[in-house]
């Protein structure tokens, strides 16, 4: 019993501020869900979905130190599972108009939540299959192999006309609009991540990140641990992909081109490889920032008709920002730190002391 408690990090003390904070978050979501229009709602939903997917990626890349670039593929698996199993049966004939859906699947419809979980599980299953060969590889080889698998998944989905409807994609997926779905799941996944990272599994993950050989010497089963992390990461990503499909209402293979993975890479790099709170913050910053930078694409920005402002500039600025982060703020927003109350307290103290020092320094200057 004690062992189990220890494993699952039940020793984490829950600060009263955390409970208050969680309450505030929940109330905010409730209020937003009532009052925001569909555009903001869509953006906020995207933020939550990107948080989920980026957490899945950060678990593997940040916490376990395995540089995997297969995110787009796992997302595709989750998204297609939800799409295939939730599209209304009566709509299937019109959607699969080139070749009918395979009779094995044609009459199965699942409730959204079941399909979503299934998407996560199927995605984890794929991770199991892929992980076997890939996780024995080191560093950049792993990166290119996972990227390769993500592309293979996409190409297979393009060609399996009777299951995925090929290039035509699947539309009429029942959509979710409430913020509770995405944020509810995001919060659950954040909590799961915190528990996981602070458990003995989490320590094993981090030990592999710090030094594989030392970790192995300490008795950490390298392959098994990496596989656990990889599969949990894929599970989260699959769930994220499923929500993504349900948010858009339509999926097609082209959405899951491997460059999609770069979005999440950007998020975890900006947030800090190995920081849950960093990932959450960065998901919001990146998603909202990309939308906010849209003014760069509009020719009349600032009322000046400068030819500099034209479609495409936004992405240039965006990728330049990524380079700035990589080159000058290598640790991202949070490094491997978490936004705990202690962390905030310390930061506030540092700022205060700096402020005081400056104040006294300037006063000192006055006296002279």
């Amino acid at each position, binding site marked *: 019993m004690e062992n189990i408690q220890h494993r699952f990090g039940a020793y984490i003390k829950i600060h009263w501020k955390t409970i208050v904070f969680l309450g505030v978050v929940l109330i905010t979501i409730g209020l937003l869900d009532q009052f925001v229009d569909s555009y903001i709602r869509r953006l906020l939903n995207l933020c939550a979905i990107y948080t989920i997917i980026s957490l899945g990626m950060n678990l593997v890349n940040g916490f376990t130190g395995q540089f995997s670039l297969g995110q787009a593929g796992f997302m595709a698996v989750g998204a297609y599972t939800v799409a295939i199993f939730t599209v209304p049966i009566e709509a299937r004939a019109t959607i699969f108009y080139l070749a009918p859906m395979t009779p094995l699947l044609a009459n199965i419809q699942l409730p959204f939540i079941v399909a979503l979980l299934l998407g996560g599980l199927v995605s984890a299953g794929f991770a199991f299959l892929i992980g076997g*060969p890939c996780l024995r*590889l080191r560093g950049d080889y792993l990166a*290119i192999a996972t990227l390769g698998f993500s592309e293979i998944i996409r*190409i297979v989905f*393009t060609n399996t006309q009777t299951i995925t409807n090929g290039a035509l994609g699947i539309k009429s997926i029942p959509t979710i609009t409430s913020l509770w779905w995405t944020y509810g799941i995001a919060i659950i996944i954040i909590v799961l991540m915190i528990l996981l990272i602070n458990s003995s599994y989490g320590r094993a993950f981090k030990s592999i990140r710090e030094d594989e050989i030392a970790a192995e010497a300490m008795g950490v089963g390298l392959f098994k641990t990496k596989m656990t992390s990889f599969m949990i990461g894929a599970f989260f990503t699959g769930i994220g992909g499923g929500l993504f499909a349900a948010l858009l209402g339509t999926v097609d293979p082209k959405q899951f081109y491997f460059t999609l993975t*770069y979005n999440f890479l950007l998020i975890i790099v900006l947030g800090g490889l190995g920081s849950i709170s960093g990932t959450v913050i960065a998901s919001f910053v990146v998603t909202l920032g990309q939308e906010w930078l849209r003014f760069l694409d509009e020719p009349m920005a600032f009322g000046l008709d400068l030819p500099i402002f034209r479609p495409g*500039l936004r992405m*240039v600025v965006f*990728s330049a920002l990524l380079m700035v982060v990589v080159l000058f703020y290598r640790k991202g927003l949070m490094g491997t730190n978490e936004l705990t109350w202690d962390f905030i307290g310390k930061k506030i103290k540092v700022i205060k002391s700096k402020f005081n020092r400056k104040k006294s320094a300037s006063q000192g200057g006055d006296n002279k």
Partner: protein
Amino acid sequence: MVVGMTLETFLQQLINGLSIGSLYALIAIGYTMVYGILRLINFAHGDIFMMAAYFTYFGIAVFFLPWYVTFFITIVLTILLGVGIERFAYRPLRDAPKTSLLISAIGVSFLLENLATYLFSGKPQAFPNFPLMTNPINFGSLTVQPVSILIPIVTFFIMIGLLFLINHTKVGMAMRAVSVDYDTAKLMGIKINGVISSTFAIGSGLAAVGAILWCMKYPSVLPLMGVVIGLKCFIAAVIGGIGNVKGAVLGGLILGFSEVLMVAFFPALTGYRDAVAFIILIIILLFLPNGLLGKKQVEKV
């Protein structure tokens, strides 16, 4: 579904494979050299290739320079670009974890793609026509474009030249030293930065040559053209054994032939063509992790 194949068709497919394979090989050399020295997958290599295609396009189609001037300028500009990328995006991270370097490479690639889309628009540009190179010649019932013959020849001579450079010159020796042991090479007084810069210069120069030949054969220039080509050529380098010039050429040819032959023998599977490269990659990584011609690497503690 296997098409009853005549000998002609088969020979024609072999020629197709040789020509695309040699192009892969040419670009794979750039990957292999950078990897040999820095242990870095230069994700931006495919995009350097793309920029070279644009330089040539602008030289001939926009500024109406003669082709030889354009080719020269293209090679020079591409080398400057490659060396510049190393200087500003990779060198500052030399002592950082590998992951940072890899992310930086992905970042540069992303930036170049977006920059090209912004500057040159997403529309494809038509690469100028070189009738001498593209007008087909008939050998019996086989039809070949002169450029398809030129490509393997150029690749072959470049490979010979590079092998000479690596094995018989001072720079080459320094390159080999850095590749074997970075720190010791440094202690031995080898100017690491110079060696790395020249590696990037050679790699980028070859990317420029590759781009010119590629565009003669496939005359459209697009901002995202380097992505898939880059990946495939990296895979070619891995197949041959990364860090090995001969390996890169061998890998490029294997990849080119397998793609074309898959299309030839299994026409029903043509939609899966792009997956072939990745499947070969994974098989190679599983059974021959150091590639066909690579040396075994021991991980150091």
